[in-house]
């Protein structure tokens, strides 16, 4: 199955102009998520229509598009966060390493333990920095003891990976709410990777941050992508162009008879192609700033 994917992808060979990916010949990672004909409904309203895409391992995949195009909705399908909305309904085939995420008997809690999430607004718990990072390992039973030993190592590791250890190490016991917005968001990333997930979903993680904090997060994403597949939703096209390997462009369709708006996936390809030579004219007009 992976071979098939590679063949499909080889139709769009890497142009190699991007210096960030000059570490060697581009290897196609395994497929982490395979979505076919995914539709999301809120009640009777169809929010997203017929999404088909494959997300690859150890890559950063960006979802871009105008407001209301359903990019966050699709992201939240990937770890079944949409389950929390009573009226939300997902149709279609959504596979994670070949497993149907929405099959009967699949435990959404287990899904979320493997597929971590970072939210738009930094949402540290009103606890100490240490307890924030230790929260996941504690409730998922990763550690036997609720304090010290292994847990200390896990917390330190996660904070180091999230590039916030130096700022946090001397105040692990003080409240996370005393940190700046950028620090809080990196803490939330540390909290998400402390449970050692396979995938990290990021829903506009930098939209509440200043450019310096944003740069921190973007560097951090590059550093950790060798260990985690990352899917990021962003409003910021420059950000998508800077950080991602592949980009999915979503747009909005206005349904003429009901005046409702449905999100559609317009184009999905390697990021450099999306930004330099998109196949769809809608993509081109969006990335060149003519609409949206």
């Amino acid at each position: 199955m992976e071979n098939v994917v590679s063949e499909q992808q080889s139709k769009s060979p890497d142009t190699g102009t991007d210096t960030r990916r000059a570490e060697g010949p581009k290897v196609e990672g395994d497929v982490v998520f395979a979505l076919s004909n995914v539709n999301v409904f809120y009640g009777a309203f169809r929010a997203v229509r017929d999404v088909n895409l494959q997300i690859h391992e150890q890559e950063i995949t960006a979802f871009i598009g105008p407001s209301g195009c359903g990019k966050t909705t699709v992201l939240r399908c990937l770890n079944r966060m949409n389950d929390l909305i009573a009226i939300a309904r997902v149709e279609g085939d959504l596979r994670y390493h070949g497993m149907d995420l929405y099959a009967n008997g699949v435990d959404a809690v287990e899904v979320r333990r493997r597929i971590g999430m970072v939210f738009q607004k930094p949402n540290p718990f009103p606890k100490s920095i240490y307890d924030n990072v230790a929260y996941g390992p504690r409730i998922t039973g990763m550690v036997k003891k609720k304090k010290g030993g292994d847990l200390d190592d896990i917390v330190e590791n996660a904070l180091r990976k999230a590039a916030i250890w130096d700022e946090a190490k001397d105040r692990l016991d003080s409240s996370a709410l005393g940190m700046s917005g950028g620090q809080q968001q990196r803490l939330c990333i540390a909290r998400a990777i402390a449970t050692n997930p396979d995938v990290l979903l990021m829903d506009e993680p930098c939209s509440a941050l200043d450019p310096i904090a944003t740069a921190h997060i973007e560097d951090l994403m590059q550093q950790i992508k060798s260990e985690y597949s990352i899917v990021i939703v962003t409003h910021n096209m420059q950000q998508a162009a800077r950080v991602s390997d592949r980009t999915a462009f979503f747009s909005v369709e206005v349904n003429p008879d009901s005046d409702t708006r449905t999100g559609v996936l317009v184009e999905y390809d390697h990021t450099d192609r999306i930004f330099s030579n998109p196949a769809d004219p809608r993509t081109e007009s969006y990335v060149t700033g003519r609409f949206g």
Partner: protein
Amino acid sequence: MAIVTVGDVARKNAQTLQGAGRDVGGTIFRIAVAGTLYVSLLIIGVLIFDVLFDGWDQLSTRLGGFLSGTLRSRSIDDKLGVHQGLYGSFWIAAFVAIIAFPTGIAAAIYLEEYANQNRTTRFIELAIRNLSGVPSVVYGLLGLFLFVEKNTILGFIGLGWLVDLTGGPTPISAGLTLAILVLPIVIITSQEAIRAVPSGLKEGAYGVGATKSEMIRTQVLPYAAPGILTGTLLSMSRAIGEAAPLILIGAISGGLTANPSFVDVTALQDRFTALPILIVTWVSQRGRDEGFATAAAAAIVVLLVVVLLLNMTAILLRNRFEKKRG
């Protein structure tokens, strides 16, 4: 003719910037709202001064005896006091805390976090809201029917054992009745506290793989604790201050001789009285024996102190929880 430029107009208009204090309506409004505050404070001040002044004879000369004494037929009596009332009120408060608080908080968690938002839920919430506004005397009737008197309907629906459990007109009946009385208030205030928990915290917990119950235990309850606590302890103050339902249940206003200590649980199966009942009783007897007016005022001071202590505890605990949640 001089040409008028845009700058000239702006300069001319700038002169009209001076005009502070012309917001007459705003000033009146500020005085009005501040005035109502001062009037309320004044009323409380007068009330406290009045009861302290009236009850001073008892409080200043024999406070210890008054706190340990009992119901008496004459006001000039060394053994006159409020201890029986304190016993009743203490155990009523205990039953409210043991029964109404856990039940009410659990109901609020269910309604906010688990119940589907459908017609049934909305109906239940509406019913709870209405129940919180039902006059307390109606709850007294309910208590009388459920816990105090054996009757055929109760036996018919299989609840006759309730009266055997409570022993009739006892502190247990009073406690259960007042627990039912405050239950809607506990549910509503807890619901509001739970609803105020930021959705970001819940999502954060779910995002790292928390189950619903883990999320509620580790995020919702700690965050909502100050609000829940304030609401529940205020409802406790209300329960302690109620007289009307207790009169219906059969609280005693005279001839109660037993004076059990607070820890004496055997007296829970006996007749009882409570602080508000003592106040009502003594006020009604002041025509016959003027000294009872003093005793009533002193009893009011005791009740006020108990309620104020409860409210202070609520505030202190709330501040502690709020500090903890940052």
